[in-house]
């Protein structure tokens, strides 16, 4: 479903701030893979997601989604294939617009906007049912501005928006990191439900190793811009945090690094 092939990205090349964020990064996802991504700060997790989403062009390499080479496509064109939820709950929704209006926009993700009326009554009923499934009471506040919602509610809504039109790839960039633990747990469970139900190919970055082990069928650890560890299936199911740390130390040859990984 997703092929990331030997991609490179260097920020501020040729300056003292030069940062080689992605170095020969390669990752292949099968359809339906729910992959969690971990790694310490600066490992290149978010950079990889942004490269796939097309936030800026990459220096070298190739990105293919479902057989289509999207390496040269701008961000808004890639949105045809990709649903996204960001770390910052403010980024995924338009605060000054109603819940219903946000959902209407999301239901047309990747389509060129036309001149027909944005909201319709058939849509309204569909959105109502979908919001009801979130169990947050949002179905009765469809005409409320999104800016009035809490961070958790906004992330849940963004998640619904990212998946309302089934994406070929779902990118979750630490989408629970800015939430309190209880809300984060709720949003994570919701994520799991939606991904399982729609069999979505998903990349989920997390800072929390437990979550990375708990969710998904595959786990990827990044280090210094590369994919260092990649486990799936039974092996992933039986993996413990201690195993992960041992694997990491062996693969990176850095005894201190596991502390960084745990604390970072």
């Amino acid at each position, binding site marked *: 479903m997703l092929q990331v092939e030997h991609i490179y990205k260097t920020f501020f090349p040729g300056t003292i701030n030069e940062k080689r964020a992605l170095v020969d990064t390669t990752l292949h996802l099968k359809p339906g893979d729910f992959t969690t991504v971990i790694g310490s700060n600066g490992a290149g997790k978010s950079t990889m997601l942004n490269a796939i989403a097309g936030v800026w062009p990459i220096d070298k390499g190739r990105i293919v989604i479902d057989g289509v080479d999207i390496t040269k496509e701008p961000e*808004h064109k890639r949105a045809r294939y990709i649903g*996204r939820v960001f770390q910052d709950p403010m980024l*995924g929704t338009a605060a000054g617009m109603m819940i219903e*209006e946000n959902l209407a*926009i*999301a239901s047309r993700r990747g389509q060129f906007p036309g001149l027909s*009326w*944005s909201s319709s009554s058939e849509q309204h009923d569909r959105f109502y049912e979908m919001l009801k499934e979130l169990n947050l009471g949002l179905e009765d506040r469809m005409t409320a501005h999104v800016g009035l919602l809490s961070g958790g509610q906004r992330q849940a809504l963004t998640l619904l928006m990212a998946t309302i039109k089934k994406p070929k790839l779902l990118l979750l960039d630490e989408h629970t990191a800015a939430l309190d633990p209880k809300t984060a747990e709720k949003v994570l469970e919701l994520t799991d439900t939606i991904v399982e139900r729609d069999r979505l190919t998903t990349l989920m970055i997390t800072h929390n190793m437990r979550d990375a082990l708990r969710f998904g069928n595959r786990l990827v650890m990044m280090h210094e811009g590369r994919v260092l560890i990649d486990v799936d299936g039974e092996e992933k199911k039986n993996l413990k945090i201690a195993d992960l740390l041992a694997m990491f130390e062996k693969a990176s040859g850095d005894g201190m690094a596991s502390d960084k990984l745990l604390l970072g």
Partner: protein
Amino acid sequence: MSNLAVSTVAQGLLWAVMALGVYVTFRVLDLADLTCEGSFPLGAATAATLMASGHSVSTAILAAAVAGMLAGAVTGFLTTKMKIPALLAGILTMIALYSVNLRIMGKANLSLLGVDTVFTYTQQALGLNNAYTTFVVGLAATLLIGIGMYWFFGTEIGAAIRATGFNQQMIRAQGVNTDMTIILGLIISNALISVSGALVGQNNGFADVGMGVGTIVIGLASVIIGEVLFGTRSFKNCMISVVLGSVVYRIVIAVVLQMGMPPNDLKLFTSVLVAIALSMPLIKAKFKGRKVAR
């Protein structure tokens, strides 16, 4: 009602079209566009030149709208494709339009004396006096444009433009090209401002190359006064607020002039008004903060 009162409200309605244009950039797109200082006289110059050379009123107003669209498109191109900050892009277009307007008219001031305008036609048709004629034309223009805007910003593309103003990252992630929505927003805004210029020019009986000075401040004053007095609950509410804000602004101006303020101080007065209104949120927050601290 006295003629002065009617004519004050009528002026407010004519200028409300311009205020709606400023609203599209300042609030909907969330960028300050100074192109309006040039597109307002551009509309007046285009319409006056065409009408003086015998073209119909409708052709003249339509041409003014198209000219405004072009002006907006230039600013949009500069700010999106060339990455020039919106404020600077607007200034560049505004300054360039000064020369363009002089070229269109061939001189700095073009009189419409003895030329039939939308106002003379309306007056002949309805048999009203000057003040009421202006009121009728202003009301018709504002209603027509207001309804058109309400429809447009409710469509898919209109919703995408509004979302661009709130959150560019979000609307790009939803597959919309924000360069396109910003350019489109600037085109619509400047078309409205240019049409307003065409109407005000006809009402004044002349087009002048300097008549755009202060357009942005008058527009902002209308938007802010309207929002404070009449609310911002929904898009429709906002539009009505802006129109009423423009009317209230004219009333305020009429009152202070009646009270003896020299007309030369008008722009100073308006700027101070807008500056105070724009600093209100900060002043309010400071005031509240102090109360809490106590």
